[in-house]
Structure formats: structure tokens, C-alpha cells
């Protein structure tokens, strides 16, 4: 396999893992908790910038050609930890400012506007995060410490992305399979009723934004460590809707659906079209991509709003099964752990 082909496959796999990580974060916010997180790309962007400035060093480095705040050189994996933290912390302003007193459709508008304001702010303030030019020369972590070829290093990075995404997925699943996830879904289905049953919906939202935000932030960190550059043009508000389209088409609230949606929308549609022979004016295919994504979204919302893989119904073990304990495989999701572990408790 030629180096170019390998690099292409590597890129696809990294993008897929990063998109999947972000999509699971968005699915937690939108699919499970019902929050119209129209500023979602900000979480990813915050993570990307956080990982950048904490690995680039002070902005006098590289001849001082780019200006940014908080420049430092933290050892691996601290920049990624900062990326996740930045995403999680962004949940506080977003959760507290926009979500306390607004109805959900207004929340969505407020978040969309926040996303646009953030782009304008970062683009126009040259000294915050180097303005429209963005940050570049972001070092790949540990590359000079590991005695690997360029391609070998990149395959290792692919593996790392997959491991991180899988680990985050497992943590998120613990939350959503627990009664906590049930409370989130109750908030999604009827916020007033959840409130009047004693659920603290403000707190639930902040948790949801923080956990989903941390996942998106981490995805931004991984992405920037792979591509080495980050600029406002990469996180314009339409990017949020690519992820929304992915999880809506795949199936909101269904983990397999999210995987399918991510493979279909950001990966296949965005990448496969690169191989089409150029037709018409330059940029036509890129524009058609956006049109295709929009049309797909509308078609699905119209004809199959539950997505390719609808959210699964949760069934619980029967009374006899509860009393005597049953093999794991007999139970469907929601009660998939069996009771036949030690002390009669299920495996976690």
C-alpha cells in the first residue's frame, strides 16, 4: 500500500473516531436528555483550542508569528485532559446563562446565536486565539519521543483515538443505563412532570452538558493533535448540524444508530465525494455535499424521524427472574446485567 493510501485510511479512521466521540456526546445531550444543543460545535472547538495552547508553548515561540492566550507546554496527556475540561467547563456558562428560564425552542435559538457570537469573537480578536488565521504547528504528542516512522506513529495515533473513544463510550453508557439516564429521558419527554416528581432538571442539564461537552472537547483535542491546526473556519455553526444529521439519520438514543449515522454522514458523504470527478464550477461538489446533508435530514425527519435504528424499548426481568436470578443473555437491554453474579448482584 502506498504511503498516500495509508495516510488517507489513517485520516479516515481518525476522523471517524473523533466524529463518533463527538456524536456520542451530542447524543447524550440531544438523544437522551432532549437538549437542543445548537452550539455543540463550541464544545469541540473549546477542546481543540485548549489542547493547542497547552502544547504550543508561549506565543513567543516559532518567532512569535501567532498570538494566543494561556500558552504553555504541558506533557502528554495533559493537553487532552485540558481539552476535556474546557468542554466540560463550557457547560457552566451554556447551562446557567441560556437554560435556566428559557423554553426549549428559545434555548435552541440562544445557543445558535452563542455559536455565531463565539465565531465572530475569535475571528476578530487577533490576540485571543490568533483570529481568523487560527493556530498552527500544534505538535503531535510524543512523536519525537517514540522511535517510529511517520506512518507507524500515525497508526499508533489511530489506535489511541479508538481506545479513547471506546473508553468514553463505556463511561457514557454507565450513566445512561443507570437510573440517571432514565431521569434524563424523563426530562426529555416532559420537563414539567420530571420537575414535579422531584427531579432537579437544572442540575440534570448541567451534568448532561458537562459530560457531553467533555466528550466533544476531547474529540477536539484529538483532532487538533492529528491535523496540527485549528481555525474558526473549521467550527462554523453548520458543523453542529452535520452531527445532528448523523445522529438523527442513524437513530437518536440508539448507540448503534449513532455509529451508523457517523459512518454514513460525516465519513462517507464528506469523504466519498472527494473521489467524484470534478464537474461544473470549482466548489460545486462541496456545495452539493451540504445540500445532500440537508436533504437527508429533511427526508428523515419527515419519513422516519426515529432514524435507521430507533431507540430501543427497555424491558425488565420478570418477577420470577428477579427472585431467582437469571443468566445474562436472557435479559434484554435496560436489565442486561444478570442477577447471578456473586451476592446475587449483577455484573456492572
Amino acid at each position, binding site marked *: 500500500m502506498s504511503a498516500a493510501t495509508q495516510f488517507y485510511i489513517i485520516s479516515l479512521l481518525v476522523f471517524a473516531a473523533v466524529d463518533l466521540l463527538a456524536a456520542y456526546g451530542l447524543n447524550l445531550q440531544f438523544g437522551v436528555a432532549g437538549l437542543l444543543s445548537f452550539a455543540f460545535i463550541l464544545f469541540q472547538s473549546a477542546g481543540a483550542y485548549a489542547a493547542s495552547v497547552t502544547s504550543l508553548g508561549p506565543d513567543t515561540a516559532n518567532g512569535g508569528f501567532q498570538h494566543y492566550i494561556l500558552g504553555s507546554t504541558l506533557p502528554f496527556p495533559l493537553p487532552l485532559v485540558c481539552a476535556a475540561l474546557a468542554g466540560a467547563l463550557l457547560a457552566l456558562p451554556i447551562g446557567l446563562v441560556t437554560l435556566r428560564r428559557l423554553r426549549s425552542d428559545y434555548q435552541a435559538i440562544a445557543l445558535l446565536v452563542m455559536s455565531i457570537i463565539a465565531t465572530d469573537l475569535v475571528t476578530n480578536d487577533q490576540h485571543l486565539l490568533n483570529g481568523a488565521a487560527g493556530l498552527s504547528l500544534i505538535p503531535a504528542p510524543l512523536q519525537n519521543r517514540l522511535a517510529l516512522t511517520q506512518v507507524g506513529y500515525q497508526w499508533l495515533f489511530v489506535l489511541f483515538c479508538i481506545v479513547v473513544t471506546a473508553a468514553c463510550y463505556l463511561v457514557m453508557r454507565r450513566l445512561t443505563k*443507570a437510573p440517571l439516564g*432514565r431521569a434524563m429521558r424523563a426530562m426529555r419527554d416532559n420537563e414539567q412532570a420530571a420537575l414535579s*416528581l422531584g427531579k432537579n432538571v437544572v442540575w440534570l442539564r448541567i451534568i448532561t452538558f458537562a459530560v457531553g461537552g467533555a466528550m466533544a472537547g476531547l474529540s477536539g483535542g484529538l483532532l487538533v493533535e492529528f491535523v496540527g491546526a485549528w481555525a474558526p473556519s473549521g467550527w462554523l455553526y453548520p458543523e453542529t448540524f452535520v452531527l445532528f444529521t448523523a445522529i438523527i439519520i442513524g437513530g437518536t438514543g440508539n448507540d448503534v444508530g449513532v455509529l451508523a449515522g457517523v459512518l454514513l454522514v460525516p465519513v462517507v458523504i464528506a469523504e466519498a465525494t472527494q473521489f467524484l470527478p470534478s464537474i461544473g464550477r470549482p466548489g460545486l461538489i462541496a456545495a452539493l455535499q451540504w445540500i445532500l446533508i440537508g436533504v437527508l435530514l429533511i427526508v428523515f425527519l419527515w419519513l422516519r424521524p426515529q432514524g435507521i435504528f430507533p431507540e430501543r424499548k427497555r424491558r425488565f426481568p420478570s418477577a420470577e427472574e428477579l427472585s431467582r436470578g437469571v443468566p445474562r443473555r436472557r435479559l434484554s437491554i435496560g436489565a442486561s446485567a444478570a442477577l447471578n453474579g456473586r451476592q446475587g448482584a449483577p455484573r456492572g
Partner: protein
Amino acid sequence: MARSFGGVNALAGATFDVPAGSITGLIGPNGAGKSTMIGVIAGAIRPQSGRVAFFGTDITGWAPHRVAQQGLIRTYQLSSEFGKMTVLENLLVAAPGQRGESVRGALLGRRYWWPEEADLISQARDVLARFGMSDKEDEYAANLSGGQKRLVEIMRGLMAQPKLLLLDEPLAGVNPTLARQILNYLSALRDAGVTIVMAEHDLGAVGRVCEPVVVMARGSVLASGSLTTLRARKEVQDAYFIG
């Protein structure tokens, strides 16, 4: 208690006591302020003046979830089921203070919260059986009939372990057989020590289970007592029975 919306005085000095262990009926013509009163008691609506005391605690202006955590559980006039959750899940989610509902508890995993969950499942199934809804356990709540949704709401209220149930027209849109059943359940609940307040238009139903009955009109309390004595009073007849 006072609360106005724009120029409308939805509540204008209404005041009443709910005796512990009673089913207190709240009646009155449309626009009398019954639902506003329920909203104010449950913390959904902030009163402009007045005070809500619940078993000696002043809960005026508390956030709705804190009021609920005290054991004061309300239902809604329009059904408010969790539609994309099964009936059993609707009941389970209502249980207060679950171990697996905190981030820490959820992260500790199934081993930590499952024993409690298994108990709750059994409890919820008992409630379902009592209301004759066992066969609907795995049905999405959105697919139920109007009457069944009302039942889910009452059952959910029970799972929340209420000290006081605040029911906003629990019999609206319910067929007479089911309505009678609901009234029987409510009486049984009262006998088990749960205090109930119900706003209701069906005076026959109110007469059967409610004692005392509070009559509201134009945002204040006109009279209270047993329905038979109230029926005899002229101002009550004028405001309510005649209109």
C-alpha cells in the same frame, strides 16, 4: 394567597387548610383559580403574596423539585406521561432519591444500584397490579388511552412516596367505570395515610370521597365544609351550581 396574570386576579386572597389524612375537594366554576392554586402550592407558580405551609414547613416560592422532594406530589390537568418510556419506566423514574441517579452512583455501576432497582421494579409491579395495568407494563406511555394515561400519572405519583397528592382534575376524560375505580384507589390511599387534594368538576365524585370540600370562585374561597351542607348555601349555589 394572591396571584394575578396581567390584569386578571387568578388568586385574590384564597386561603384554606387541608386536614392531614383527608381527601380535600377543590371545586368551583372555570376560572375560579383552582389550577393556579395547585400551581402555587406545588411551586410551579410564584405567589405575589401569601404563604404555603406543608406539615409546618414554609415552602412558599420553593422550586418545584424541592417541593416534590418534601413529599408533595402533583399531577396535571392535561396528561403528562413520559411518552417514549414504557409504563414501568414511568413508574420507576418517580421513586425519590435513587442511588443510581447521582453521577457517582451511576459511575459505580450496576452492582451499586441494582439491588435497589430490583426492589423498585417489584414495588412498581405491585402498583401496576393494584390498578389493573400489569399487562401494559412494556407499552410506551404515549400509546395508552386517555384514561390509562391518567392512571399512569396517579401511579407515578404513588411511586414518589407522597405525603400529599395534589390532583388536578384526575377524572377528566375518564370513563365512569374507571372513574369509580380511581375513587376507590384514592379512598384506599387516604386510609393508608396519604393526604389528598383534588380539584374536580364532577360533583358526584367529589361528594363520594371528598371531606371537606372547598368552594372557590373568582380567586377566593367562598365556603368550605361537607358537600351536603355546601349545596344548601345560597352564595355557593349562585357561584357554582347556577354559574
